[in-house]
């Protein structure tokens, strides 16, 4: 077993591109769920809206890349509006039903034959992210080693932009949540009726929160497809939404830095486990394959089994997260 390789991968995963993307999506979800108490089970739908927003604008409409990015946020906001109108006046679980249904529908629509001319169907959209990488001061194909971390030049560029965005957006959310507007959101989370009795229009506040979180989710989706340089419908599987939920609950919902902490912990853990299993000595590996069917495919599936188990146990025993406090906990009431 090559422990050096495993550790290098795990360290690199600690602040890698996936961490940024998932943390951003979790920041959006934190605005929804952590601060406002909205049960959004379709965050991946907002990511898809952002991703296809830029992909389709460039690929099909032939627009400028940067205009496409701008429009990806518009699409995410429109999606939030469409999902919010029928559900936000109703009880919390209706939003979860509609968002999970909508996110899966978006995926099915994007990969369908009918939409192929626009979204590229199953093959998706490629070659649209050029302008982003043209700005890179690093050599795209070269490996850069910084301390224990090692990344390709294109990823270094991605990481610098990504982390800057992530920290700026996190700080923005922190300031917003300290403003009267943010306090109203938290009041709605604690007791919607009381907030309404004080003359606040809870429906509009919830709608604004849904749109803000959705747009942040859209940014995450855009960043993800720029990093991968392709938009694939099947990467926007509903299980991604719940990976984001797991990440948010690990860090503790309703806390400013929890998405980043949670995402970093999640990815380090997953990359460590997967690489360790892949690097097992051949004898051990064969035994495991014969007894518990540990094939390469199943190692990839293990991640989702862990997400499921983690979400189940966290929601049951530590809904406030590993570092969270029960005071900032939307799952605890009602």
């Amino acid at each position, binding site marked *: 077993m090559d422990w050096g390789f495993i550790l290098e991968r795990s360290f690199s995963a600690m602040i890698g591109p996936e961490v940024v993307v998932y943390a951003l999506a979790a920041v959006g979800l934190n605005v929804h769920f952590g601060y406002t108490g909205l*049960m959004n089970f379709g965050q991946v739908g907002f990511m898809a809206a952002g991703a296809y927003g830029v992909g389709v604008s460039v690929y099909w409409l032939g627009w400028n890349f940067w205009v496409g990015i701008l429009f990806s946020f518009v699409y995410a906001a429109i999606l939030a509006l469409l999902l919010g109108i029928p559900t936000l006046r109703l009880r919390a679980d209706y939003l979860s039903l509609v968002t999970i*249904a909508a996110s899966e529908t978006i995926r099915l629509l994007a990969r369908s034959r009918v939409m192929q001319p626009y979204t590229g169907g199953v093959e998706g959209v490629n070659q649209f992210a050029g302008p982003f990488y043209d700005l890179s001061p690093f050599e795209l194909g070269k490996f850069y080693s910084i301390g224990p971390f090692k990344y390709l030049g294109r990823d270094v560029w991605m990481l610098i932009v990504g982390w800057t965005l992530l920290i700026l957006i996190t700080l923005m959310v922190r300031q917003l949540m300290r403003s009267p507007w943010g306090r109203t959101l938290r009041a709605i989370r604690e007791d919607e009726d009381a907030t309404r009795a004080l003359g606040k229009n809870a429906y509009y506040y919830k709608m604004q929160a849904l749109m803000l979180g959705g747009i942040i989710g859209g940014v995450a989706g855009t960043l993800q497809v720029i990093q991968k340089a392709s938009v694939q419908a099947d990467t926007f599987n509903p299980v991604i939404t*719940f990976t984001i939920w797991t990440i948010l609950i690990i860090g503790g919902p309703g806390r400013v830095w929890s998405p980043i902490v949670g995402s970093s912990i999640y990815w380090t853990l997953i990359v460590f486990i997967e690489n360790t299993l892949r690097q097992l000595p051949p004898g051990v590996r064969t035994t495991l394959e014969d007894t518990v069917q540990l094939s390469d*495919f199943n190692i990839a599936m*293990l991640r989702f089994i862990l997400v*499921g188990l983690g979400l*189940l146990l966290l929601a049951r025993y530590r809904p406030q997260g590993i570092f969270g406090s029960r005071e900032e906990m939307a799952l605890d009431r009602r």
Partner: protein
Amino acid sequence: MSQLTLEGLKLGLYLAMAAIGLSLIFGTTGLVNFAHAELITWGTLMAYFFNIYGLVGTFGFLSVLPAPFGGGVNFIFATLLATIAGGVLGYVLNRVVFRTARNSGVSLLAQMVMTIGLSILLRYVFVYFFGSRYRVYKDYASQRANTFWGMELTTRDAIAMVISVVILVGVGVGLTRTRTGRAMRAVSDNRDLAESSGINVEKVISQVWIFGGALAALSGTFFGFDTVKWDIGTRILLLVFAAVTLGGLGTAFGALVGALIVGVVINWSTLIIDTELKNMTALLVLILALLLRPQGILGKKQRIG
């Protein structure tokens, strides 16, 4: 058109069996059970395993045993076993996971997140052991359709539809006439009132999970006629949600009505849109239902809060 209606009724009948459990679990505990899709898949997979491997053949070293034990049992018997397995899984999930959660005061929203976790856990455990390949049952896998009055239906589907109707009628009679069924509806209607009139609520919830799990598993065996897949339940979960919301969350008869409407509407919609996109109609139905009548066709207004 008549063919589409027939297909729609078929889908609606299967959906209804899956939806009743979901609706009753919501009614009795207030919990939207996102893991219901996995109860459906469980039925499909169990029927497949009993059909191919027999009673104990799933454990490799026993597969050499003669027919009913090692070599696979007849599909009809396998369906029965799968239904029982569904009831068992429903009971176990409630007993091990959700009853303990309720007793230690875990909030409903946290329980909802738990069902999601459970759903993902089960789904990927299924794919871990079953693989992502598509498979088919050994018996009745492909049949030629019979033609009557210009409509086509295989004998297999016809029998499954008749069984569904019989079971759904049975469920209806059971819910209105038997003591257990009335207790289920009473708890769904008003939990506190039911409890104070001497109904053992936990017992009723347990029965609802068994009953819902068994029905979902049975519908799963029927859904698996064309192909057996590890995520077959997840693929139709959207339809089940649309059905229960349209009919009214928490009402068993609403789920039945909603499922039939969703099944037929989805198949009619293929007249206008591509067949590949027909399940999208369910989302449309869901959203329209929430906009126009959020309590559902048979629901009561106070539920939507």
